[in-house]
Each structure stands twice: as C-alpha cells, then as structure tokens.
C-alpha cells in the first residue's frame, strides 16, 4: 500500500498551491501575463497530477465524466450568454457596455471580461481533464509476445 510515500506526500502538498496559482493567473490576467486559457490549463494540471499519483479511478470519483461534460458546456454557455445578453440589451454581440448602466462603460468592461474569462477557464480546465482521462484510462496494448 505505501508505495511512493514521498511522492504522495509531496503531491498532496503541491496540489493546493497549483490551484491557487491558477486562480492568480485567472484574476491577475488583466495586469500581467495570463488569462482564462492559461488558468484553465494550470487548474487542470492539479487534477492531472492527482490522477497520475493516485490513479484515474480516484480522479473520476472527484470529478465524474458528467461533471466534466457539464463544465465544458457551461463555460461556452457563460461566454455566449454574455454576448447574447448584450444583444438583448440592444448593443452589439459581446459589447460589454451593456453590462453596466449608461455612462459607466468601464464597469461593464470589468464585469464582461471577468465573465468571459471565467467561461473560458471553466471550459479549458474541463476539456483538459477530459482529454487526459480519455488518454490515461485506455489500457495499454498487449504485445504478441505477451500472450
């Protein structure tokens, strides 16, 4: 049972800082390098590290495939929904000025970027985890000599 004890402990110590770093990249993306896509990938790295050390079955207990599919769709819905909301308010598609009261367009810009980048991050993180699960849960091919 206690194989790779050091690896398990170090991974458990590293996973929360990786998630925190992903959130930093997500919300600091306006002022430095970063944004929704990068933050989503970093967030997925935390889950991938967990799956590598503890097995994919353990990961699917934490985030089942249904949750991953819902996350992928929800992110796109959040992105497109922001655009459709501004359409319904009578502005252009994804015109963030629709999200604030008239005369305060910069507040709408802040809120709009936050929503859109949140959608991108959610979709990218779910898609990355789903791709890793799809590859890793495939059992390796048996060679002819192994029969």
């Amino acid at each position, binding site marked *: *049972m206690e194989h790779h004890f050091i690896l398990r402990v170090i*991974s458990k110590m590293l996973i929360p800082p990786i998630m925190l*770093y992903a959130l930093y990249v997500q919300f600091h993306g306006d002022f430095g390098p*970063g944004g929704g896509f990068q933050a989503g990938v*970093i967030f997925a790295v935390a889950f*991938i*590290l967990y799956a590598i*050390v503890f097995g994919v079955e353990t990961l699917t207990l934490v985030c089942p495939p249904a949750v991953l599919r819902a996350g992928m769709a929800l992110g796109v819905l959040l992105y497109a929904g922001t655009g459709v909301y501004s359409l319904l308010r009578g502005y252009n598609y994804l015109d963030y000025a629709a999200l604030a009261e008239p005369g305060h367009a910069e507040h709408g810009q802040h809120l709009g970027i936050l929503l859109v980048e949140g959608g991108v991050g959610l979709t990218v993180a779910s898609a990355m985890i789903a791709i890793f699960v799809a*590859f890793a849960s495939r059992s*390796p091919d048996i060679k002819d000599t192994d029969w």
Partner: protein
Amino acid sequence: MFVAAITAVFISMALILIRAMAGPTLYDRVLAVNAFGTVTVLMIGLIGFVTDRPDFLDIALLYALINFVGTIAILKFFRYRGLGRSTADASE
C-alpha cells in the same frame, strides 16, 4: 554580471544535453531532462531581468510546476506502462 550568469546557464545546459544524449540508462536521461527544465527556469528568470520585465518570474514559476508534473508523468509511464493505473496496488 548578467553575461556571466547567462554564460554559466548555457554551459550547464550544454553539459546536461551531453548527459541526456550519452546517459547509459533511462534514469540518467530522465534526470537530465528534469535538470534541463530547472536550468530553463533560471534562464527565463534571467531573460526577465535582462529585458526588465518581472512578469517573466510568473512564467518561470509555472515552468517549474509543469516540469515537476512532466517528470512524474514520464517516470510513471515507464514504470507502469500507462498513466492511468493506480500506484497503490502495484504487485511488484
């Protein structure tokens, strides 16, 4: 001072590459790739300081994290012949 630091980083990169090519066993090569990643982190930090863009430190930190995860993935793949298997019930 930056010239000296960058020269030192390049020399260690060359030495690590020689070890990665010549390494007799798999573990020498994996260790060389891991060390190359660490030196790359230093390189990114140096480039950030030379070009006066401290944002590069964020990228260096991220590179260190991804380097660690990548090394773990390579080692697990060669030890267990697949990434998905649980490491708890390994019989060997």
